[in-house]
């Protein structure tokens, strides 16, 4: 069959033109005629650059040249150049057609002609533009959401600060028993509310992908000490024992986000306490090196609580679902805690899993990735413990084993006894002590720690033996103070690695004096009351802070914004103020700018280096850095916590 190629090319829905080796157009199909509004007869015999002078030296003209001179095929997408040829969609509206052009060399008699195909890609290009618009709009929306969250975080915390601050002040004033009880209830409700708000904000942040992680060097043992203490107090109130096993932590210094690690541990431990009526909570932690830069922090939280059924486990990590919806009513909480913990682990390239037996207890296992810190700190006693023998007396086997594991790591030889009775038998059998140091639990059936000590101290042949009492909790420690003469040291449970090192250092390696670690934060007793400058715009917060500071022994001068503060400083004696407490968001001049100004000398050279502590309800990540970058020395997050304030003021005054 005869094919009429000319007719065929005219039937196509794309532009076809042939340019010969002398760069002359020899065909121009109907599609091109229609879109360019140029008839084939007016085009043939002309060069494309004389038809369209703007193409001189253009990418298209050069590519055509390459095609006819060297046989190079070319694709000219519409990404970089939208419409090389002046082609229009219709004569009426004159919309430029977006084009994708292909140049193909056609070889004949040792020379090349160029076959040019022009495709209308306006439609797909419009799609890309629509996509771009969508993406941009979505980003704006996400940004707006993130800003809203940041603002909410601030807005909600400000009144909460007022509520918690006022309640704290009331508890420190004379109250009847009933009033104290009511206040305590109001206080714990307000704290729960704050926790709920924090959970919801965190959850929304994770959901919006707005949650960022810090990467800072920190001491894992110090962090654990801080986390465990309040948790243990809470557990003690419910008659539960918290047991720690940190013997497999090889790196004390690690790099990561301590705030998030704290959040994970506190969530899991509080959960365990919440759902356990009797028994103990065991926390196991270990570090596992992946390579020279990364490590895994692995842990388990085991409880002897109500357990979770297999069906409930399936829904456990889903947002807003507790194992049983009735648990929300019984145990409180948003049901977001475990979801947040799992997501936090996932975001740090790890995971959270659970195994459980109903009625027996649950075990939550987690791991996540952290960085290896450049700083190296190894937590261990002053000297290696290999010359020393330890006797551990405790009726809890899990605790005994964890203590033994830790001490063995440091070189000690350990003997375990699960009661004071068997320990006494063991000691009497040898008639002289084979042990340098005895760690004994206070609460044991039949003979408790105290009685054991009295019995031992009566015997002369055990006089050199160091006795360390492991008291059940800090709050009960006072009861044992009259036991000082019998014990060389008293350490309160739960025994963290730091506390264990301290008790060994203070007995085996330093002196034989009785020392009790100062774990209670106390305010300094000042002979002369010092004056602080408080820069804060919210009246309730002004009142809360002033009253709290007064209670702590400080006088306060209040300025309602940064600019007033600078004026006040200018007119003050250099020793007038010991420190400045600075709110961050204020009208007229905010805390950041005020600090920058003061550092530059706006309040006079005398105050250039005054310590400035930020006090802000902004609890979003990066706020701390923002404060420090502005020149502030430290940071207290609102709602302000009494102990936090004492600690920070002690540090800087």
């Amino acid at each position: 069959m005869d094919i009429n190629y000319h007719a065929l090319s005219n039937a196509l829905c794309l532009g076809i033109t042939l340019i010969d080796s002398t760069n002359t157009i020899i065909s121009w199909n109907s599609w091109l005629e229609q879109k360019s509004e140029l008839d084939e007869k007016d085009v043939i015999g002309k060069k494309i650059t004389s038809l369209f002078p703007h193409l001189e030296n253009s990418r298209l003209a050069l590519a055509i040249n390459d095609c006819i001179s060297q046989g190079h095929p070319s694709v000219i997408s519409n990404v970089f150049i939208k419409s090389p040829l002046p082609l229009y969609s219709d004569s009426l509206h004159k919309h430029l057609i977006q084009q994708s052009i292909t140049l193909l060399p056609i070889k004949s008699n040792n020379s090349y002609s160029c076959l040019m195909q022009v495709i209308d890609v306006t439609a797909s290009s419009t799609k890309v533009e629509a996509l771009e618009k969508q993406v941009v709009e979505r980003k704006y929306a996400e940004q707006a959401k993130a800003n809203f969250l940041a603002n909410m975080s601030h807005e909600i915390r400000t009144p909460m600060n007022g509520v918690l601050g006022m309640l704290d002040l009331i508890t420190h004033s004379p109250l009847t028993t009933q009033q104290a009880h009511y206040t305590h209830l109001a206080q714990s409700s307000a704290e729960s509310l704050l926790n709920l708000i924090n959970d919801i904000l965190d959850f929304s942040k994770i959901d919006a992908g707005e949650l960022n992680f810090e990467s800072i060097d920190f001491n894992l043992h110090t962090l654990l000490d801080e986390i465990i203490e309040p948790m243990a107090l809470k557990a003690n109130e419910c008659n539960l024992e918290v047991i720690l096993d940190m013997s497999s932590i090889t790196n004390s210094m690690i790099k990561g986000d301590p705030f998030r690690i704290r959040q994970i541990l506190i969530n899991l431990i509080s959960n365990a306490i919440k759902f356990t009526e009797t028994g103990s909570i065991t926390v196991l932690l270990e570090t596992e090196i992946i390579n020279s830069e990364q490590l895994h922090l692995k842990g388990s939280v085991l409880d002897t609580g109500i357990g979770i059924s297999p069906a409930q486990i399936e829904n456990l990590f889903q947002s807003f679902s507790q194992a049983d919806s009735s648990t929300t009513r019984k145990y409180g909480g948003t049901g977001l805690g475990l979801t947040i913990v799992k997501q936090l682990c996932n975001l740090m390239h790890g995971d959270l899993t659970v195994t459980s037996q109903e009625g027996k207890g649950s075990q939550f296992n987690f791991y996540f990735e952290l960085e290896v810190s450049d700083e190296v700190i190894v937590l261990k006693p002053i000297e290696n413990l290999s010359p020393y023998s330890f006797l551990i007396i405790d009726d809890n086997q899990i605790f005994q084993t964890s203590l033994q594991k830790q001490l063995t790591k440091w070189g000690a030889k350990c003997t375990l006894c699960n009661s004071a009775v068997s320990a006494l038998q063991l000691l009497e059998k040898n008639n002289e002590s084979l042990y340098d140091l005895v760690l004994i639990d206070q609460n044991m059936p039949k003979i408790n720690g105290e009685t054991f000590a009295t019995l031992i101290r009566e015997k002369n042949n055990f006089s050199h033996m160091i006795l360390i009492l492991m008291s059940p909790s800090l709050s009960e420690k006072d009861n044992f103070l009259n036991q000082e003469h019998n014990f060389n040291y008293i350490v309160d449970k739960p025994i963290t690695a730091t506390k264990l090192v301290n008790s060994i250092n203070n007995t085996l390696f330093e002196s034989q004096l009785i020392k009790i670690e100062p774990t209670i934060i106390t305010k300094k007793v000042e002979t002369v009351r010092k004056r602080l400058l408080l820069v804060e715009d919210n009246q309730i917060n002004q009142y809360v802070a002033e009253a709290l500071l007064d209670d702590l022994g400080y006088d306060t001068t209040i300025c309602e914004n940064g600019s007033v503060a600078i004026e006040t400083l200018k007119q003050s004696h250099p020793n007038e103020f010991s420190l400045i407490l600075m709110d961050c968001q204020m009208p007229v001049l905010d805390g950041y700018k005020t600090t920058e100004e003061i550092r530059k000398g706006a309040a006079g050279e005398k105050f250039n280096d005054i310590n400035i502590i930020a006090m802000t309800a902004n609890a979003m990540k990066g706020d701390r850095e923002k404060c420090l970058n502005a020149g502030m020395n430290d940071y207290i997050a609102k709602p302000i916590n009494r102990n936090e304030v004492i600690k920070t003021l002690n540090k800087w005054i």
Partner: protein
Amino acid sequence: MHFSELEEDFLLELFNIGVGKASDSLSKMVHQEIILSVPHIEMISIDQLADVVGKDQNISCVSQKITGRFDADSLLLFPKNASLQIVQLMLGQQFTAETIKELHQEAFSEVGNIVLNACIGSLSRMIDESFDIALPSFDQGRAEAILNVKEHGDEAVLFIKINLRLSESDVEGFLAFILSSSSLDKLQLLLKSLVSEL
């Protein structure tokens, strides 16, 4: 096989002229300076090429087959992220990452086409022979799969490192001519005679 110092210099010169021409075209196209250079050239196997690129590395590849005095598959390879970066830089800040991903294949094919054409052109001028050149095709994925290491691991590759400098960013990519053994012999002979004529 190894190149003599002279042969290596000769090829470096040849490909630098090629990418130089491509630099001009690219710069003109996006109205900003793009500098391409060839710092290194050697003969290796496909297997080694995959190692250099990183077997598990995600790469973007534009290839054009050439046939003539000898046959080869010419490839421009960039790590996928680097190729996205190139497109982003060439287009400027007007688009979001999502749109860049959408435009990436078309844009990178065009860039590859320009660079490969220029280098093939330079090669054919040098040996005074023309090649039949196919249209570019685009591929993306793990280097091992794209280079078909399993089946063609032993085949010879004329391997050319290229640097692309754009808006103060340096991006490293690779140019490769995969040759069958008969084509390799032909190229070697050709190269020897060209160098001896110098």
